[in-house]
């Protein structure tokens, strides 16, 4: 049983999806999805524990030894990402029932849970697999599922948002596929560990360079790295609240994980950041994303859209950390990956609560809301503080590491940009706080909190934000271990 954990982590959600479809009733399908998502969470926690105590696990699918067979490989880097994805999945499923009842018709609910489980299986698969082509396949499983989930949004603009995402997502995945093909052409292998042994020997080769560039562009599209982020704001703004909360914390993070995996493990830091100068290529868009994303966020009237632009900016922080290619920088990037999942899920969940009561997440709907929905708005403020990076919150810890990395690399102007972007975050969070706390409520506005089943997961995440801001041993420890593994002898 324990030996087969890596495979079960994918197989359980994948096989539960058709079960949900066969059940055909919203309530029971939710029960299945809830149980399965918590089971995957427990499994990923066990895996992380095993990896931290006993080193990397290699699982041979069907008993075929790599490099011929497909290998699932769990090491300190992806064990950590697996836990993030599974934890967010479990929390969003706990939150989903009331919100989905409100936003989706009865007949479509069981289909939603089916698709959700497929998406979860896809995202976990991308993370766990040690095979480059397998990454593409799982990417497409998760992406196709997320296009469907986004198109379920209550507004008709959800349809066009999903279509745009489909076009961009497919182009991104196909670029990645071209890169994998070129690598295969040169090395004759698809196994990541095997590629890592062979690619550095032929780095002067033009085909390897082409593969490098194709993969960089494809993954940048998938991860919504500025300026390839244009699919993201609408997709997040018009998707159902549950879907936004889930995807914001997982889809782009997994793409960033693949970026890290490709450039640190396959191509190796010396080649990627030395002769291909990936550092500059990543850092310039990252800083642009931080400044421009935050600035655009200030001018949004739809708060979900505002948070979506803020996500573009936060992805900039993560990519910036990776761009340093030092242990401190990568630690900062990995930490922010984790912390941003906590922050954005909490904030999007709070917006889901607002939508549940008000039927809108525009700034006008927030007037005086702090009196009518005190717990929801307090959760939003808690998430907002962490987003800004106030001390004692998780957001502070990751920004602190990024600042240290910038100063350590002798690039103090980057530290200045990090601070400026955080100031911009104060502005856009404050806009909401001002309207919610200091404006009078309109007459006859709906009053009352969101259901307790929605508030508990939201508050759990908000408290986690404060917990990981004060006790940094777990998160910083795991992130440092991952960074050292990527840059050090772990290759």
């Amino acid at each position, binding site marked *: 049983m324990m030996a087969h954990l890596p495979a079960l982590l994918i197989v359980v959600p994948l096989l539960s999806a058709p079960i949900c479809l066969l059940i055909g009733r919203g309530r029971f399908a939710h029960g299945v999805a809830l149980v399965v998502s918590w089971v995957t969470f427990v499994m990923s926690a066990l895996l992380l524990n095993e990896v931290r105590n006993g080193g990397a696990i290699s699982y041979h699918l069907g008993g075929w030894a790599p490099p011929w067979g497909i290998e699932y490989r769990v090491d300190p880097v992806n064990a950590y990402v697996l836990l993030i994805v599974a934890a967010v999945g479990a929390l969003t499923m706990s939150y989903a029932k009331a919100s989905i009842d409100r936003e989706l018709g009865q007949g479509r609910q069981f289909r939603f849970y089916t698709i959700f489980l497929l998406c979860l299986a896809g995202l976990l698969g991308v993370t766990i697999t040690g095979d480059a082509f397998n990454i593409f396949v799982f990417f497409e499983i998760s992406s196709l599922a997320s296009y469907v989930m986004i198109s379920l949004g209550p507004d008709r603009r959800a349809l066009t948002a999903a279509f745009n995402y*489909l076009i961009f997502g497919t182009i991104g995945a196909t670029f990645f596929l071209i890169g994998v093909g070129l690598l295969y052409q040169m090395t004759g292998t698809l196994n990541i560990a095997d590629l890592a042994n062979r690619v550095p020997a032929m780095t002067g080769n033009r085909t390897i360079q082409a593969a490098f560039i194709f993969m960089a562009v494809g993954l940048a599209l998938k991860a919504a790295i500025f300026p390839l982020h244009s699919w993201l704001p609408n997709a997040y703004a018009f998707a159902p609240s549950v879907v936004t909360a889930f995807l914001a914390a997982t889809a782009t993070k997994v793409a960033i994980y693949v970026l890290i995996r490709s450039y640190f493990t396959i191509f190796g830091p010396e080649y990627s950041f030395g002769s291909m100068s990936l550092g500059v290529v990543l850092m310039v868009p990252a800083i642009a994303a931080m400044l421009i994303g935050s600035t655009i966020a200030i001018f949004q009237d739809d708060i979900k859209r505002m948070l979506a632009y803020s996500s573009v900016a936060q992805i900039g922080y993560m990519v910036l950390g990776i761009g340093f290619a030092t242990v401190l920088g990568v630690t900062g990037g990995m930490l922010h990956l984790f912390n941003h999942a906590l922050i954005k899920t909490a904030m999007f969940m709070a917006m889901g609560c607002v939508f549940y009561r008000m039927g809108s997440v525009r700034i006008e709907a927030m007037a005086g809301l702090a009196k009518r929905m005190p717990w929801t708005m307090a959760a939003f403020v808690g998430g907002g503080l962490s987003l800004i990076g106030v001390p004692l919150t998780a957001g502070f810890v990751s920004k602190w590491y990024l600042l240290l990395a910038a100063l350590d690399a002798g690039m103090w102007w980057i530290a200045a940009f990090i601070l400026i972007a955080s100031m911009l975050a104060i502005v856009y969070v404050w806009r909401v706080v001002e309207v919610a706390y200091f404006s009078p409520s309109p007459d006859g506005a709906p009053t009352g909190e969101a259901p307790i089943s929605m508030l508990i997961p939201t508050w759990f995440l908000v408290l986690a934000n404060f917990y990981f801001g004060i006790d940094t041993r777990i998160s910083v420890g795991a992130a440092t271990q991952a960074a050292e593994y990527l840059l050090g002898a772990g290759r």
Partner: protein
Amino acid sequence: MEWPGLYNYWIAIFLMMAGLYIVMAHANLVKKMVGLVIFQSSVFILYITMGKVTGGTAPILIPGDVVYSNPLPHVLILTAIVVGVATLALGLALIVRIMEAYGSIEEDDIEVLENSAP
């Protein structure tokens, strides 16, 4: 190597660029999907080409010393074709829904409708 040498790759790259151009240049959603499919198909050709060994036969067990093509890229592409078909089906389904919701599948018209409606 004689001109045009490796002409399969020329065709693959031409289709790739043509497909990508259609996706970007056309405002009609169905035409966009067509461009996307051409783009994906070009990658299939790229993979199939790299598996071909000159003078090789199909990889079947035949007695004697036989040269055969590398079957792995071909098998990979079977998977990618399935993914491509699923993407195409989903894209077309979304276009049907967009047609029902907006009464148009021209990007310009949809943009006007989106900006005018609340």
